[in-house]
């Protein structure tokens, strides 16, 4: 209870919290989290925070062009690393002495760090807290839901690719959300088709053999936020630490991301005003 009060105090100035989940690894959670952060921070008046709780495989520092940055401490706590004035980032990646250092921790130690990220980081006033997670339904996921109950989670965005091997893990993640009473904002289908830049023909690199995210969302009554096609520029931007939305504004993938980000914003704003009405 004292701990919960501490977390509540620290997170009091967070207006909206969005968790980015999957169940399956390598479907583009971190890529999407980074795009969402950049997309929301495009509005200079919004303060955005990106928290990376993938402790074994933190991708966010590299994707945001922040490799090699360190976390500074001040009287008010740990300082996030700022990409832009209105976009701050925290990740275990910033705490490693070398980027290749393996973090070989069991659950309880990972949980401890996640709690510290929430309790000791001086986020300040934030409009959007985006939490990027590792694949699975384990310690990190249980802990973040538990600790964030001190504030309010708007919901989860669940990322998948079209193939059944991904969907079968994502259905489990959807069940996890139901189990812990986490609202699902919707599902994003990444790597959804590839348009050849030369001949413009579309190919399904990861064929949706069981109907893809669309069919799954219909069956499970969750919202499909959008489909993002494969674009080699995405991987390149991630490797280079650049914002894909800025580097490739003409890409169909950018258009998809922007539509999805808008839908997420609308969901958050709508629910916020609903809650204010209830109060």
């Amino acid at each position: 209870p004292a701990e919960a009060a501490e977390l509540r105090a620290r997170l009091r100035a967070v207006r909206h919290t969005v968790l980015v989940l999957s169940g399956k690894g390598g479907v583009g959670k971190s890529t999407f989290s980074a795009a969402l952060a950049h997309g929301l921070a495009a509005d200079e008046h919004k303060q955005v925070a990106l928290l990376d709780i993938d402790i074994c495989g933190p991708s966010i520092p590299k994707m945001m062009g922040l490799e090699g940055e360190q976390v500074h401490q001040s009287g008010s706590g740990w300082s996030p690393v700022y990409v832009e004035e209105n976009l701050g980032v925290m990740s275990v990646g910033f705490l490693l002495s070398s980027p290749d250092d393996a973090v070989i921790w069991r659950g309880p130690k990972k949980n401890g760090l996640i709690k510290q990220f929430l309790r000791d980081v001086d986020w300040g006033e934030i409009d959007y807290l985006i939490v990027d997670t590792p694949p699975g339904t384990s310690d990190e996921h249980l802990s973040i839901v538990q600790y964030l109950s001190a504030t309010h989670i708007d919901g989860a965005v669940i990322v998948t690719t079209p193939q059944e091997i991904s969907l079968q893990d994502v259905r489990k993640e959807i069940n996890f959300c139901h189990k812990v009473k986490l609202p699902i904002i919707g599902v994003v289908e990444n790597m959804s088709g590839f348009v050849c830049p030369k001949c413009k023909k579309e190919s399904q690199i990861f064929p949706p053999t069981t109907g893809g995210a669309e069919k799954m969302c219909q069956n499970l009554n969750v919202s499909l936020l959008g489909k993002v096609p494969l674009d080699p520029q995405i991987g390149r931007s991630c490797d280079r630490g650049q914002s894909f939305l800025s580097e490739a504004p003409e890409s169909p993938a950018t258009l998809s991301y922007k539509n999805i980000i808008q839908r997420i914003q609308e969901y958050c704003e709508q629910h916020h005003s609903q809650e204010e009405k209830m109060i």
Partner: protein
Amino acid sequence: PERSTNLLGVRHILLVLSGKGGVGKSTLSTELALALRHQGHRVGILDVDLCGPSIPRMLRVQDRAVHQCDSGWVPVFVGQDRAIALMSIGFLLERPDDAVVWRGPKKNALIKQFVTDVAWGDLDFLIVDTPPGTSDEHISTVEALRPYRLLGAILVTTPQ
């Protein structure tokens, strides 16, 4: 840890690891098992990805169930020739979409059981497919396998 008799008939144990998710560990584990079987070897796959077990579907045995015998669990045998044996948490779920929402200690307990309590019989190769990361599953699997002949690890990645 004690040596269980269940692994005494296994000639080579291989770990398939990555760190990164979605690079093709399970795909490689499956293809490797099939290739080794094609060469006439007896192969087992131990799927220790508790949150996202992919191997059963990849071998089209997702609807099978496991049974117990005196020495522990009987693995699922794949194909008419039954030349691939498979153990996965996928076989223990009541419904395929059930999420395994366990913290580390519970995962560790099951992994120990998976390593010592599956009646593999005689195998030329046991391939251990792992989830992404460097955490509970990995630490527990390596610890439980310590008394046995561990051939080595294959690391899987993509180019980026």
